[in-house]
């Protein structure tokens, strides 16, 4: 996007600030997800509280950025690529906020498991790997947005299906566990909901990547299955 075409450099600055704010919010979400996963592996339930608190900050940021978007549209009436950027941002923040919520869900699930006196590590190490993959997707999607790099965005969209596949295999594994030993059912169900939250984080990363493609190329590639993207 060639921002130098604008006559108003103040407008440029506003857009730049908006973008930086979105990416800072993204940074907070990244930290949330990785702290939640660390809590899962280490069992440090104390960090759950700070994750829940930080989620409130993310929610506030979402509202603030949405307000800013409305302001920019009302005041500047952006057109073409600028309008797409603002529209894209308002969708990206929604996805980021939801990814943050999922991180909170993971943290709370971890607390329930450890407080019940169970160790999630006995249920396979797949969760940690799945979470690393999902976190990587979030990071790459945000990088793609910072650089407006559609190639990387496409890569995220493709890689999300790997996360989905991994999620399914973890579910199968847990079902086997539950059938073998019904005493593990409570914990297994918690772990399934954690895995589901991680998988959702991957989906949100994919949505962010789709918005990046929309912002740059003006093509809406949501829900286009089986066609060349």
């Amino acid at each position, binding site marked *: 996007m060639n921002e130098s075409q604008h006559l108003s450099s103040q407008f440029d600055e506003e857009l*730049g600030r908006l*973008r*930086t704010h979105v*990416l*800072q919010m*993204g*940074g*907070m979400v*990244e*930290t949330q997800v*990785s702290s939640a996963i660390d809590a899962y592996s280490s069992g440090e339930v104390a960090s759950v509280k700070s994750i829940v608190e930080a989620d409130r900050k993310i929610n506030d940021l979402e509202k603030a950025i949405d307000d800013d978007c409305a302001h920019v549209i009302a005041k500047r009436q952006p057109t073409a690529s600028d309008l797409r950027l603002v529209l894209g941002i308002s969708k990206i923040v929604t996805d980021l906020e939801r990814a943050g919520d999922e991180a909170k869900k993971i943290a709370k699930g971890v607390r329930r498991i450890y407080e019940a006196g169970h160790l999630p590590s006995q249920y396979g190490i797949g969760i940690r790997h799945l979470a690393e993959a999902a976190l990587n997707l979030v*990071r790459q999607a*945000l*990088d793609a947005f*910072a*650089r407006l*790099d559609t190639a990387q965005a496409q890569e995220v969209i493709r890689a999300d299906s790997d996360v989905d596949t991994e999620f399914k295999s973890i579910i199968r594994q847990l079902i086997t566990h539950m059938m073998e030993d019904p005493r593990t059912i409570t914990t297994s169900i918690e772990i399934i909901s954690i895995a589901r939250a991680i998988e959702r984080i991957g989906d949100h990363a994919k949505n962010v990547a789709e918005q990046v493609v929309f912002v740059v190329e003006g093509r809406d590639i949501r829900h286009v299955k089986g066609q060349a993207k």
Partner: protein
Amino acid sequence: MILAVIAAAIAIPVGIFSRPWHGWAVFCVGLVLQQLIHFRHFSRLDRWTRNPVVDASLEGEGAWDDIFGRLYRHEKELRAQIEQRDQTISLLRAAAQALTDGVVMLDLQNNIMFCNTTAETQLGLKLDTDQGQSILNLVRQPEFVVYLEALDFSRPLTLRPERYKDRVYAIHVIPYAGSRRLMQIKDITQADRLDQTRRDFVANVSHELRTPLTVLAGFLETMQEIELDDTERRRYLAMMADQSDRMQSIVQDLLTLSSIESAPPPDNDAVDMANLIDKLRRDAEALSAGRHTIVVDADGSGDLRGSEPELVSALANLVTNAVRYTPPGGKITLIWKTSPQGAEFAVQDTGPGIDAKHIPRLTERFYRVDRGRSRDSGGTGLGLAIVKHSLNRHQAQLDIKSEVGVGSRFAARFPASRVANQ
């Protein structure tokens, strides 16, 4: 000018000797010719200024020649200066690239102006796409954002980057040239780890010495306050001696470790391996007192080069460990193998085995797989640390393989340069 003077010089006689308007006509023709010449030069100059090049295209006659000459020289000097400056800049850039620390130059709005390749890998930046973009767009960790926006750079930020979780960076921000900022990123992972090890070490030494000291103090108090009969007194004294022996051996091991660390490189004497292995076997049998089967599998020819006392103590330590930790009825095999690549001395046991998560930390000082059990068998927690150090001084590696419930294999691998008489 000259042309106008010549025209006047011709026109005046023509005017006098012929009719006056003939003279004027000649003069006018001269003026027009001069205008044409000027116009030609002017258009040449015009063309040149549109695309100034240092070549011979800018040439003229008369007064124009001087002007063109000066312009030509000016342009040439300017170009030389620019080239020199370019060179200086690229040298400075190369110097920044050569730094082992990451360097990022930021402008007023925290936009990236330049970064070196070290910073690119440390922070996941790409200079060619990220130049001019705010660094906060790419390094998004909340603590970094807060640090950069707080504008208080009196102390460095210690950052565990989200991208590489096992690393630790110290980030210094140095304001320069008004409100621009130079960010220096130092990788302090190693220093951080050392710090941690040192803290652990002090804590461990204190703990290891405190335990026997507490026992000793307890007995002393008892003996001071209560009258004991002879047998009880002897029993208590024996237990006190045990504890003081324990403390002594810990201190002894610590001294050994520190003397190995500060000693000059080991000797290069040949150590007779056949003899040494035989001695190790006898020691093992004595320690085991018939509880284990001890087998020697030494098909290696050749001897080791190095300091005999150090090698004997290191290898004996491996054997003693195997005897101590293998339950009665187990089998311990001493293996000696040589090949053109080097030699290997290994001790294989059928003991309880060690969980994989402990193996990387086994050679740490005072590291214990199972606190209670290893103190029962009389270890100080320093044995393997000493072994590792002694072996390192002989350029040898300690290789540990173990499977829980099956047994362990501790092997010392020596390089070919340490093998003699093969």
